[in-house]
């Protein structure tokens, strides 16, 4: 008999279009001191399981079948007061975003002490002492002082430590953590995961970690359950499931994970999950619209050159200049990108990589430095007309598929907008033909043109964005974290598409990401950024095998060790 037993549960959500079954036939168990991972892509139902166990399912959802036992006794059918007593005292929960999890108007002390005194027979000062000790254990420096502070006075990582302390302060036997590190910086993630593993072993707590991140699973879980469309498709010891999966879904999922240790030619097709999109026809580039009559001149030398680029933002405006506060988001950045190459820019959030991209694309005006592109100096251009010439040659793809398309425009108009603006077609018919062709080319099919963005999934929307970006036949494509918001399997498809397009059209690309394994797959050369400055620029393989700068080494150390993952079906790219 395990500590927590989830037996064959089914969770239904009645909606206006019928009953939606979020979770079906799920059986899981956790023992003391053990960490169970629950992995799946969005919509798999993993968060629903967590909410159901602790009884916080959003109405009208309800558990319609099955049973949940804690220490042998049934807990899913208890009256409200009984469940309330279990929450925090016997089962604790950690949510994803530490900022919104804490009451902004109460001190940490208040929140901790209240939780402790609600469940344990301690008085106020005893509870406070316990709270201080716990804060020290989770790694908050000067806990005696900081306990009196408010949540907004802590940084992101510190806040999550406070959340962990809150979940543990009444000494529960089970902890459920729902995406505990997703909202945190990469460098903090590892620390928090280590902390959780230590606490789990120390207190012999049974932990369920719900996540979409394979790296987290590989890092700290003992056993893992793989979820797909509300069902558990496979379950077992982590090493076995990740290294030698049996179920085709698990196999596809694993093969889609970008590897830090090798560079692949392409990601293998993950057909089990989504149809690979419509088959893309072979192109005769010289005669096809995309390759023909591209109105830019051939040139020698690097396509893009950045010289001492500098960007300063005013964070606090004031009447007197000395009272103003500034942020130097980009400092003294110089590099160039050769024609036909894929250049990667990697760094943590706040490193300035997105700011650099936006300066190149013309969304921000640099406070200092020069940008040379396609033979002209972008920073010297004044009128919109002059800039238009270069805009045709440079386009951008963004990160969030849900905000990068105007929800009120049809796909046809979205993709046609750049064509119409730059007068690239002779008439309406030609514009239409070009758009339909582009949509087919990115794997969506021409019929997509009449639909609206909300009718498409995240991956499909990114394809629309790519089609829009290609509509001006650019020679340079900036990709700002194009797959960070997508599920792993969809990411693989989109990255494949980008790779194919790059080779076919001879595009020069700048690829921005915080995810090193992805960079390794996509880029020829890489620049590493930190706090607005460029630390190192090197060939990709050089950087991964032999990093020069301290910070690069640090970032590489932080990469999740995915050696346990199976290498089945991967085509490694030969070294050049």
């Amino acid at each position: 008999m395990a500590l927590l037993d989830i037996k064959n549960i089914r969770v239904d959500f009645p909606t206006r279009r019928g009953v939606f079954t979020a979770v079906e036939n799920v059986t899981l168990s956790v023992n003391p001191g053990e960490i169970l991972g629950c992995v799946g892509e969005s919509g798999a139902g993993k968060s629903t399981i967590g909410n159901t166990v602790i009884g916080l399912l959003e109405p009208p959802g309800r558990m319609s079948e099955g049973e949940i036992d804690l220490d042998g006794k049934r807990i899913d059918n208890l009256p409200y007061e009984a469940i309330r007593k279990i929450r925090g005292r016997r089962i604790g929960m950690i949510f994803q975003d530490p900022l919104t999890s804490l009451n902004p108007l109460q001190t940490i002390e208040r929140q901790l002490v209240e939780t402790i005194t609600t469940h344990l027979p301690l008085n106020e000062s005893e509870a406070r002492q316990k709270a201080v000790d716990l804060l020290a254990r989770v790694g908050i420096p000067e806990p005696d002082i900081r306990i009196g502070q408010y949540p907004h006075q802590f940084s992101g990582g510190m806040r999550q430590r406070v959340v962990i302390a809150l979940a543990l302060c009444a000494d529960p036997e089970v902890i459920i953590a729902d995406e505990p590190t997703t909202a945190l910086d990469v460098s903090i993630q590892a620390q928090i995961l280590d902390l959780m593993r230590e606490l789990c072993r120390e207190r012999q707590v049974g932990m369920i970690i719900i996540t979409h991140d394979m790296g987290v699973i590989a890092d700290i879980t003992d056993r893992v359950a793989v979820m797909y469309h509300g069902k558990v498709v496979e379950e077992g010891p982590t090493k076995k499931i990740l290294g030698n999966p049996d179920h085709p879904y698990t196999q596809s999922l694993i093969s889609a994970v970008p590897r830090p240790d090798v560079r692949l030619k392409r990601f293998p097709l993950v057909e089990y999950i989504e149809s690979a999109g419509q088959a893309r026809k072979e192109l005769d580039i010289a005669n096809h619209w995309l390759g023909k009559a591209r109105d830019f001149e051939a040139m020698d030398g690097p396509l893009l050159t950045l010289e001492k680029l500098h960007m300063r933002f005013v964070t606090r405006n004031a009447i007197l200049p000395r009272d103003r506060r500034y942020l130097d988001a980009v400092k003294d950045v110089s590099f160039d990108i050769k024609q036909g190459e894929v250049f990667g820019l990697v760094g943590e959030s706040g490193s300035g990589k997105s700011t650099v991209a936006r300066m190149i694309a013309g969304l921000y005006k640099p406070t200092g430095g020069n940008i040379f592109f396609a033979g002209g100096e972008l920073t010297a251009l004044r009128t919109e007309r002059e800039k238009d010439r270069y805009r045709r040659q440079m386009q951008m793809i963004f990160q969030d598929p849900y905000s990068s398309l105007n929800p009120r425009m049809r796909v046809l108009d979205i993709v046609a907008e750049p064509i119409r603006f730059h007068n690239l077609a002779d008439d309406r018919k030609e514009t239409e033909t070009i758009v339909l062709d582009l949509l087919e080319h990115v794997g969506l099919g021409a019929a997509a043109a009449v639909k609206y963005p909300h009718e498409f999934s995240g991956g499909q929307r990114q394809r629309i964005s790519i089609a829009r970006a290609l509509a001006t036949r650019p020679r340079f494509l900036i990709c700002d974290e194009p797959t960070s918001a997508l599920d792993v399997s969809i990411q693989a498809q989109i990255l494949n598409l980008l790779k194919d397009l790059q080779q076919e059209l001879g595009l020069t690309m700048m690829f921005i990401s915080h995810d090193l394994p992805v960079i390794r797959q996509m880029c020829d050369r890489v620049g590493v950024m930190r706090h607005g400055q460029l630390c190192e620029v090197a060939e990709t393989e050089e950087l991964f095998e032999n990093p020069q700068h301290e910070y690069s080494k640090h970032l590489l150390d932080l990469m999740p060790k995915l050696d346990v993952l199976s290498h089945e079906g991967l085509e490694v790219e030969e070294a050049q």
Partner: protein
Amino acid sequence: MISFVTGRLAQSIIVMLTVGLIAFAMFRFVGDPINNMVGQDTTVEQREQLRESLGLNDPFYEQYLRFAWNALRGEFGQSYFHRRPVSELLVERLPATLELSLVGAGLALLLGVPAGVYTALNRNGIFSNLIMSGSLLGVSIPTFLIGIILILIFGVIWRVLPTFGRGEVIDLGWWTTGFLTVSGLKSLILPSITLALFQLTLIMRLVRAEMLEVLRTDFIKFAKARGILTRSIHFSHALKNSLVPVITITGLQLGSIIAFAIITETVFQWPGMGLLFIQAVLEVDIPVMAAYLVVIGFVFVFINLVVDILYFVVDPRLRADRAASGGH
């Protein structure tokens, strides 16, 4: 903290000066003050003399400063209609309006806030639904109509309550109060309910909306996940966090009670500043209008200042991070 208060104070003063400017502009330029003060057979020379002696030919800013200085001392000249000093009229009428507004505001708050909390916590109860339906009705009936209906029921059909005037009042120095007599209190009932109803429903709906919003947040979910007592979640967590925006809007609403008093006083013939103002508008009695504007402006600016400071005191995020208070 100090800089925040001084900043707000500075803004308040600027607003007061602007209000004063508008009042002065009205006073000086709408109609001809001389014409309103003298009879028809005054000669042109005499009018010129009067103009000079009143300083009406002086430069604009001089006149404005004089007006402002007088206003500060409570001097607004003579009412065209009543032919008495405006300040006298104001002092006479002020207690009536203030007493009525206080009782109205008190009712609105004492009933509105608990009703809002109750309907938020018991979303689907029958009583809740009744209150919500009633509130929708309350927001749909204009104040004057509420007054008329109340008069019809309690004054005409069942003759139980007085429907005009203040009843008997007692002098306390320059103040006159209706609180100390039975007839005074009875006269207060219908007008104060009329005044309070609109505000009550607004406050109730606001408190309810805010609480429902807060109850949906992540930190409430986390508090529930920690097994915190329901009572504590509802009051220490949800209610306290709803109060921040509620304070602002409630403050503004209560200020507007003084404006709504105009309507109530008209319906019930309540001898307050509001009735004075309406008569002034109908008779184009500019000095009274200007004076009312300045006094009301002051009241609102004061209320806003208090609300801003309260906001600052209640929300720790504002205290620590002054950069955030851009004013919008």
